């Protein structure tokens, strides 16, 4: 009997032609993961392996694929660089993965109107370089720019390098082209002008949608004239003293391109890895951008605010800037690493630092805190903890850390960040019951057959169709935290 995978594969081959669909076990396996790694036990709850992988080259092809999927009730999972760690691009019950990285052409760089129109599968690094070659720059991009795609980052609603000055993934969008779950192709915005006036802002409903509402195929983004640039690094004795400077900085009239930080533990890990020159302290990295007079002025402001900290050399500051996509070098020490993310108000940065360090201590973790300041009001902490996925209990506990971190976010007046598969249960808590219901209605109305990246965001769901029990998972995580507390300290 011909199997599901084979049927889908044949249909896909008909649509895209030979050579752009595969369904052999080797391929299906290597497309069944992203940056995160699960305890193997999770394979019981989910079927992470796609039935088929397709490399579409046009919106029309995707439309045909989606129509087929809708008719046959097959899941569609759009996938960019798969550089997120929250399972956003992983099937939970098989289906069709759309490998979007082949739709990577820049269609137009319009310097007069300061916009770029590109296919969604290009990496941010490639897009940046192409725009830069014409004398312009992209305002903000994810720290994983070497592999993260334009559509991927928009779908995570992320913040990243440049966010302090130019906002997050959703803030520079003029228009998107999206293939909807019914196969229609929608243009969401206005290419040359800002989105305002009457009508729902369709651009924004796809920001942070985690691919659950459609497949983003093209984006028109704002670009900016390229100006002078200067990275600066200041070394503080610890994260709490650094925090004072951050709070001062966000209340000053300086508007750096980017503000990020890493704590003493992070640099300790780098030294452990053999980077003997890694500093001893907590580092505040700031990138200034603009006309030279402005940069000089802002550097003066920063020097005053960071008084008492050690101002690092031009070379080291440039090195820190060059390392902006390499926050997890220390992973090798684990050799596994678990990442968490929590947003807190800038005003409560100190409390959050205390709470995270307390959690690390209680759970006896080998962990470090990195983070960034995406705007004047918010700080995002991105702590990571080193572990060994080969040790079952240790690795199960990892989810406990992430769950507890989300809790810290809420406690300190903030929130967790990306939800993906395992934290989908937080969506309700994050936005409130009515907002959650509204989102659910939106999803149901756009995707009544639930084919578009099912199981994510509005309903953490297992392969058997019943939802990931929101109340049970955090409870399980508490138990894990308890277990970890009894275990010996991580070396």
């Amino acid at each position, binding site marked *: 009997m011909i199997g599901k995978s084979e049927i889908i594969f044949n249909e896909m081959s008909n649509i895209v032609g030979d050579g752009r669909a595969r369904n052999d*076990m080797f391929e299906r*396996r290597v497309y069944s993961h992203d940056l995160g790694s699960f305890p193997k036990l999770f394979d019981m709850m989910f079927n992470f392996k796609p039935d088929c992988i397709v490399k579409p080259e046009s919106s029309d092809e995707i439309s045909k694929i989606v129509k087929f999927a809708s008719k046959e009730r097959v899941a569609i999972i759009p996938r960019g660089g798969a550089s997120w760690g929250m399972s956003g691009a992983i099937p939970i019950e098989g289906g069709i993965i759309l*490998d979007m990285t082949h739709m990577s052409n820049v269609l137009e760089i319009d310097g007069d109107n300061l916009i770029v129109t590109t296919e969604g599968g290009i990496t941010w690094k490639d897009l940046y370089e192409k725009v830069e070659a014409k004398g312009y720059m992209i305002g903000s991009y994810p720290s994983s720019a070497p592999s993260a795609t334009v559509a991927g980052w928009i779908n995570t609603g992320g913040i990243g390098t440049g966010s302090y000055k130019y906002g997050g993934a959703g803030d520079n969008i003029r228009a998107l082209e999206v293939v909807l779950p019914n196969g229609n192709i929608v243009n969401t915005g206005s290419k040359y002008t800002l989105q305002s006036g009457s009508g729902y802002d369709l651009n924004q409903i796809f920001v942070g949608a985690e691919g659950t509402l459609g497949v983003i195929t093209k984006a028109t983004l704002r670009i900016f004239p390229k100006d002078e640039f200067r990275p600066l690094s200041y070394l503080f004795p610890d994260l709490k003293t650094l925090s004072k400077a951050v709070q001062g900085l966000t209340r000053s009239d300086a508007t750096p391109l980017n503000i990020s930080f890493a704590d003493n533990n992070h640099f300790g890990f780098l030294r452990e890895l053999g980077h003997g020159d890694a500093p001893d302290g907590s580092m505040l990295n700031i990138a200034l951008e603009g006309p030279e007079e402005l940069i000089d002025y802002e550097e003066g402001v920063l020097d005053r605010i960071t008084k008492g900290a050690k101002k690092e050399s031009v070379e080291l500051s440039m090195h820190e800037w060059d390392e902006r996509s390499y926050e*997890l*070098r220390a992973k*090798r020490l684990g050799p*596994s690493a678990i990442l968490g993310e929590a947003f807190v108000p800038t005003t409560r940065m100190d409390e959050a630092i205390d709470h995270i360090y307390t959690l690390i201590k209680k759970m006896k973790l080998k962990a470090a805190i990195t983070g960034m300041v995406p705007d004047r009001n918010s700080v995002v902490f991105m702590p990571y903890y080193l572990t*060994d996925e080969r040790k079952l209990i240790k690795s199960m506990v990892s989810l406990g850390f992430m769950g507890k971190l989300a809790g810290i976010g809420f406690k300190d007046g903030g929130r967790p960040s990306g939800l993906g598969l395992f934290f989908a249960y937080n969506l309700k808590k994050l936005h409130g019951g009515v907002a959650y219901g509204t989102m659910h209605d939106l999803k149901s109305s756009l995707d009544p057959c639930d084919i578009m990246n099912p199981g994510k965001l509005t309903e953490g769901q297992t392969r058997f169709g019943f939802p990931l029990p929101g109340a049970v998972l955090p409870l399980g995580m508490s138990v894990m935290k308890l277990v970890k507390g009894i275990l010996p300290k991580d070396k």
Partner: protein
Amino acid sequence: MGYDVPNIEDLYACLSCGYCNSVCPTYGQVGWESRTPRGVIYYLKQLSQKNVFDTILRRGVKLDSQSAERLRECVFMCTSCGMCEEVCHVDIEFIEFWEDIKEWVIKTVGKTESQKKMYDRIKEFKNPFGEPAETRGAWLPEDIKLSETPEVIFFGGCTESYRMQKLAQASVKIMDKAGVELNILGEKEWCCGSPLLRLGQGDIVKSEFMAHNIKMVEETGAKTVVTACAGCFNTIKNDYPKVLGKLDIEVLHLSEYTKRLLDSGALKVNNPISQKVTYHDPCHLGRHAKVFEAPRDVINSLGAELVEMRRHGAEACCCGSGAGVKAAYKDMALDIGVGRVEEAVETGAELIISPCPFCVLNLNQAAEKAGLKIKTVDLVQIALGAL
């Protein structure tokens, strides 16, 4: 139980960030996750961790014939260019990593027919072409005086000795002009071993070839080995000491040696060239052996105007022919080469210079395939004309 895959710590250290994907020249052609460093690592990790759960869950991470064939294909499509090492988030030393993996794949899955042939020919004839040893030194021009007490041994290498003799001839003519006391090993020279090391079949290289070549050099009393082949150079300089320990002889690429001769005044530029040229870093010379400046200094000394390609130095793109890929996947090697030649054309250069016979051959064939006029010449050819 899981498969006994080597480099297990690296498999677990991999972050799956995918930075290696976009820089991998083979992935650029193939376009499937299976042909990325990240994809292969993930698969190998799955193989290594097969355990009791797999039986219960019927996950079936077993290497059936279809998967085994795909694994071998994906691993041997790698040109060993080392760009993945350059961008790796967690500092995996990929150049060595892939050699170990290739060796393991051959042990576990077996050799292809052509890999087996290559091995047998090198084992029997000491070169990959199956040519007789007696003619190995036949390229030597008659007017070159060889020294009985040489300071330098010129190591021709298989490709220049049997297929691209003009490069070997130009090399010794340059040294002869500078009055270098020089000799060659002739029929006593064996393949450096690079083709087998890069293809995971290095056993006889490590047990015989390395020691033989070094012994032959030492017997001449020379203290320096010079080669114009980037592959031979990297192998003798960097792979031999891993097995033999620190060498008592100095190993130089001809570009380095030419620079030395120019700096000391032993060589003079008599007919400077006035062309606008670009330089293609061979992977073996650049990323692997970290020789970036010497060939550029020589080009500048020759009077040429050097313009750099977008990707150069440590980030230079592979020509496409490394690690047996040209023999096994000819079209793909050429397509990678086409991309590189197009990048060279963008610079406005009239000529591509590269000090590696494999790069020269592949880039010229790629230009022909794409209908591009630009030629690639070996550094020794252009240097000889100017000196």
